[in-house]
């Protein structure tokens, strides 16, 4: 009683798809994931995740009463990067740092004014809360910056004319260095992963768990028709969700869109192949919604989040992890998406990425065909 593999009939397919669409539209959770989740992600990444720091709370421990110390204090208080409270001793500042109320402190020592008056460069101490390394680096860099520019204004940093190299940086494609410029393409990747893999895995696992899979298998529907009827609706849903993200990103978050719509859809479609294939495979291999959901999280959501270059630089990872990233389809999606939004159509970059994603898709589909067929016997 083997199920024919190749038989294909449009009428049967459309009947199956109608059933799938009815299921989608009856379950509010699909809308939660396809409509609400993209909005939530964009919103959180747009407002919540900001690596553009300002107004960091620090303490100024001023141990010197001189006019120079007061001027430097004023410079720190005027800096947009800091919200500085003035304290008299280091113990209090330490206690506040332990309680995570402040991120660092600047100590202006007793002989500060005297050193300035004698024409030498004075010393200050910058102490940061190292438990958050990024923040610590940021506090150190900006605290030094404020001090340097104060020294310059005091005329102390005037150096004799001597060779001096200055680096002037220009950021292409994102001159304002807005982090949402890379967070929006990242959200698109995550939303497509969720619909493609998570949702598909859940839906098909449910058919197995409830036993309706056997019911479908008993009908004249062939494997190809069955898989197509599961894939097409979620493919369309994912594309719709991606479109929503793009429109919101461009209108509300003012993300530039310098490539073409054709390229965007080509890239997205190519990525959805491995995403859907993986979802199908997980559901056929686990046949249990809870296990399928946890596997889908582990095999698709986390890699898309962590190993795709979306937030964390792949080149900074240890070599074994870098090797693993080559197996993550999103790794080929993220750079292409960033390019299509911020740079334009660079087909020299898109085509190899699309090709690799399609190969992954082919691989996962073969796997799930096998897993489904075997489990029928």
């Amino acid at each position: 009683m083997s199920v024919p593999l190749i038989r294909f009939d449009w009428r049967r397919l459309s009947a199956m798809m109608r059933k799938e669409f009815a299921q989608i539209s009856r379950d509010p959770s699909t809308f939660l994931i396809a409509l609400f989740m993209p909005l939530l992600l964009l919103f959180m990444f747009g407002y919540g995740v900001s690596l553009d720091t300002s107004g960091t709370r620090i303490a100024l421990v001023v141990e010197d009463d001189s006019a120079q110390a007061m001027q430097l204090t004023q410079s720190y208080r005027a800096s947009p990067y800091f919200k500085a409270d003035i304290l008299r001793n280091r113990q209090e500042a330490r206690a506040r740092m332990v309680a995570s109320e402040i991120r660092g402190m600047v100590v202006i020592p007793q002989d500060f004014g005297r050193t300035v008056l004698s024409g030498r460069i004075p010393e200050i101490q910058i102490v940061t809360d190292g438990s958050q390394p990024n923040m610590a680096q940021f506090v150190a860099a900006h605290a030094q910056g404020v001090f340097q520019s104060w020294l310059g204004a005091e005329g102390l940093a005037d150096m004799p004319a001597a060779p001096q190299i200055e680096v002037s940086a220009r950021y292409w494609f994102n001159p304002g260095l807005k982090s949402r410029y890379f967070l929006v393409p990242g959200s698109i990747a995550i939303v497509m992963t969720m619909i493609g893999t998570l949702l598909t895995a859940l839906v098909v696992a449910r058919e197995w768990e409830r036993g309706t899979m056997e019911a479908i298998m008993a009908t004249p529907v062939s494997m190809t028709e069955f898989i197509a009827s599961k894939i097409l609706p979620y493919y369309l849903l994912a594309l719709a969700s991606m479109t929503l993200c793009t429109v919101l990103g461009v209108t509300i978050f003012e993300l530039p869109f310098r490539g073409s719509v054709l390229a965007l859809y080509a890239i997205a479609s190519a990525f959805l192949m491995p995403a859907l294939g993986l979802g199908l495979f997980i559901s056929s291999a686990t046949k249990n919604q809870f296990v399928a959901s946890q596997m889908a999280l582990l095999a698709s959501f986390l890699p898309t989040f962590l190993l795709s270059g979306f937030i964390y630089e792949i080149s900074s990872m240890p070599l074994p992890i870098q090797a693993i990233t080559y197996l993550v389809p999103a790794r080929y999606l993220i750079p292409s998406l960033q390019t299509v939004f911020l740079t334009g159509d660079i087909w020299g970059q898109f085509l190899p990425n699309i090709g690799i994603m399609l190969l992954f898709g082919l691989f996962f589909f073969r796997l799930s065909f096998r897993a489904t067929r075997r489990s029928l016997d």
Partner: protein
Amino acid sequence: MGRIWAMIVKELLVVLRDPKGRTVLVMPPLIQLFVFTFATTLDVKNVDLAVLDQSRGAQSVELVQRLAGSPNFREIRMLHSMAELEQAIDRQEVLGALVIEQDFDRRLARGEPVQVGLVLDGRRSNAAQIVNGYVGQVAAGMNADAIPQLREGGARVTHWFNPSLDFIWFTLPSLIVIITSVAGLAITSQSVSREREMGTFDQLLVAPLHAHEIIIGKIVPPVLVGCFNGTLFMILAQLVFGVPYTGSLLVFFPCLLLYMLSLIGIGLFVSSLSMTQQQSFLGSFVVTNPIMILSGYASPIENMPEWLQTLTYINPARYFLVIVQGLFLKAMPLAAVLQQAWPLALIALVTLYAAGRLFRARME
């Protein structure tokens, strides 16, 4: 008491009976531990940089050699034209390109200050900013060697609690928060809806059990799994990754329990609202995301807009993150822990109460 015990045993069996389910409770967290730890560094290393050296004098060669010698750069690719530069950046082959003008050496020889241009790929704006810092350091090093006065005085920087700013010391304590949350929410949210989908919920209703007994039975397994994972991670963080734990263990466990309870309240709430496992899973997923992203782990809370900062006061992860980081690295004293723990207790109380009410309403 006997009834509660029977209920707890039944719930534990549901979670632990299935071998695949058992594996799923422990393996993914362990995989996450290693992947997270090694992948989530915001350090930028092994960067490929391009150089367009149009001066080709002693000083410009010196600058390029210093860049090549910096441990942060992997490959320094020499370019010959602006067109090459544009292509290398467009295709993301290099993260940045340094442009040294023709008069670089001539101006330095005359004692004039000189600018070098650094073109960076703004698509990866974070990494680009850090690379800008690296190149600046190399240039500053060259300047300092040329001008001795630049080396004295100035600001002395110290980092407390984590002197070498090891990123793992930040990641691992935070991971305890993330992993216990995922376990707490995923297991709890599934527990009621699974019964409903399987039809065993009705059996539960006719069993001689009070609503609160059922709820206690549902609370225990996720608490145990969460505490198990949390403890395992705490031990691994110290033994395998060498992160120091400086606080008191007596403080850690009550806080972990409070945190688990506040999440389980949220999970039960989602579960009672859902009719199917799919709904409860997706619902808990939608809830987990903001809890994690707005906890202060992904980016500092003070960077958020004011109104969103206010909203994070109802996020339990926010408090637990401060406690865990404080207990690991800062030997946080009890008073400071309590400051974070009482909102946690309040949230636990409110969410559990609300979930209980909703659960009871659904039973009738």
